[in-house]
């Protein structure tokens, strides 16, 4: 790569433009957020981001995202297992449907989910009578986050499972291991890095989601209010500094998550080879 710079054209132009566009479109707005939040003193900042209402919003945002990611961990493992190992009619179709949550606008997802699970909805008419309230509740938030995070675990585990060396399973079987034993001690360890990555991705996506959640949550302070809604509420009280303070907290946590995912990624790549 070092020689490339002498031969291939356009390095400084490409880099210059990249940095300029990144700076204008991404870094400038993010910096504006920090700057605005920085106009608060430390005490004011702390008071803005650590109210009871804010704490329950963080708890819900991270809690719901974590629960949804755990559920996705299991569902994703099962789905990718079925898609790789078994064959049944319509498998290709099901396989491509897994990606729909990536392409479907979240506002549409929110709109549909909120009307499916109310008492008069297609699924709500069966669920509400038996006490399952999957609209305007914490369950609703978890449900819609499961939908949104669904592709991540499947799409990280699937390729690893496809490439899995069959010899080790065969060896385990010939040594008299049961199916479950060989799954637990041979397959699972190999899949572990991919599972962790998929979990982290689903989790990170869940933290950031707004459009879908705002439709289904019911927005009740202390109960179903997620952190981004709190930011909007602060804005509507004309309190810009406090709104950006909460925004900065979210931003820092999410970016830390992202860096962590990247590190996990590198670790798992190294782990594989």
């Amino acid at each position, binding site marked *: 790569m070092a020689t490339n710079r002498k031969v291939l054209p356009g390095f400084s132009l490409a880099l210059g433009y990249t940095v300029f*566009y*990144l700076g204008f479109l991404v870094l400038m707005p993010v910096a504006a957020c920090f700057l605005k939040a920085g106009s608060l003193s430390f005490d004011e900042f702390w008071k803005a981001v650590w109210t009871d209402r804010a704490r329950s919003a963080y708890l819900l945002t991270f809690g719901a995202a974590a629960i949804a990611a755990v559920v996705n961990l299991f569902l994703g493992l099962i789905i990718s297992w*079925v*898609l790789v190992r078994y064959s049944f009619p319509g498998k290709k179709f099901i396989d491509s449907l897994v990606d729909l949550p990536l392409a479907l606008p979240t506002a549409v997802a929110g709109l549909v989910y909120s009307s499916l699970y109310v008492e008069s909805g297609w699924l709500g008419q069966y669920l509400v009578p038996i006490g399952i309230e999957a609209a305007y509740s914490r369950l609703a938030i978890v449900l819609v986050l499961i939908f949104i995070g669904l592709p991540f675990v499947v799409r990280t585990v699937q390729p690893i499972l496809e490439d899995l060396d069959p010899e080790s399973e065969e060896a385990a079987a010939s040594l008299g291991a049961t199916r479950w034993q060989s799954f637990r001690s041979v397959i699972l360890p190999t899949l572990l890095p991919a599972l962790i990555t998929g979990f982290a991705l689903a989790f990170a996506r869940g933290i950031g989601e707004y459009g879908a959640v705002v439709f289904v949550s019911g927005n009740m302070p202390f109960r179903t209010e997620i952190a981004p809604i709190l930011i909007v509420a602060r804005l509507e009280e004309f309190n810009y500094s406090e709104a950006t303070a909460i925004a900065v907290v979210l931003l820092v946590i999410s970016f830390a998550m992202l860096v962590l995912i990247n590190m996990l*990624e590198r670790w798992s790549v190294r782990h594989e080879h």
Partner: protein
Amino acid sequence: MSIDAISRKAPAEAAAVTTKIRKAQEDPPLVRWGLTFVTLAVIGILVIIPVVNVFTVALGHGVGAYLDNLFANKDTFHAIKLTLTVAPIAVAANLVFGISAAWAIARFSFPGRALLTALIDLPFAVSPVVAGLSFVLIFGLQGYFGPFLREDGYSVMPYLLSGIGALIGGLVYFLLLPGNPAARKGVWKYPWAAAIAIAAVTFAVLFFLQQYFEVWPRNQSLKVIFALPGLVLATAFVTFPFIARELIPTMEAVGSDEELAAVTLGANGWQMFRHITVPNIKWGLAYGLILCNARAMGEFGAVYVVSGHIAGKTDTMPLRIEKLFQEFNLEGSYAVASVLTLLAIITLVIKTRLERKVPASAALPGPMKPENK
């Protein structure tokens, strides 16, 4: 060792080995049925029922009413047009960025390369509401540039356009610069000086022309927030990483050997780009484009903050869905939702087709490309 490797062995031996593996990899029927059922149930409940629901409600009053909801309603039709304006501009801007970022990052090493790669992911970490909010902080009336834009906003346009012109001028020069140093004669002799001169002249000429013909009005407010530019900025921010994220690994995987060869043989930048780079990355490019576009058309949170909700002016399709829903026009709202759903399905179909050509899954943040086989 993979199945391929095994089948390359003597046929009889291979057959024996494969049967054994089949047995070792096979699950009991009960497990198989159970897991398959779980998969079908999960996909059915989470994905298929909602999609069916969208179309059922949207078409609930017949096809005629459905088409009326989409095209006879002036504001809805405007929302469709607006989305079809905003998304392509945002995608095009991110496309130019994606190519230039991938070129810099995948082809060259420089200090801060890892940091730059990480920063490209930053928009994934920003909640869309926060993204919208930060543009309001910058361009809003109470923001950093707001008062200036309101007083004499158009005065930035000559600089902006001339700047873009200068950039394109410089780019064209470098693209046409012969790859072989021996062939550089005349204006090609001193690349840097010539490029800077071209850029400067382009800037000056464009600037002069705009001032002379008074293209831009003076002392008028230039609307960014609550107008088209704000919608484009918010959309571009949210979809920022998609194309770059896809192109960087694609370019890395292809390697630079062919490009080096082309340049050494005397191709200029444009020839190399057109005949070597583009064919090599075209599937990755297409893949990134459709994912970027799907997200751009569907973005809700960020544009919600910067739109201003002026009916028939600044409502995009996702915002229109919410508005129609609140005006108790359920069929209308689902009709718009069905268009976006249809778009998502088309995206999926193209994506599945492309996936046979590209090995990677680009929608996922982080360098999560499964290694090429």
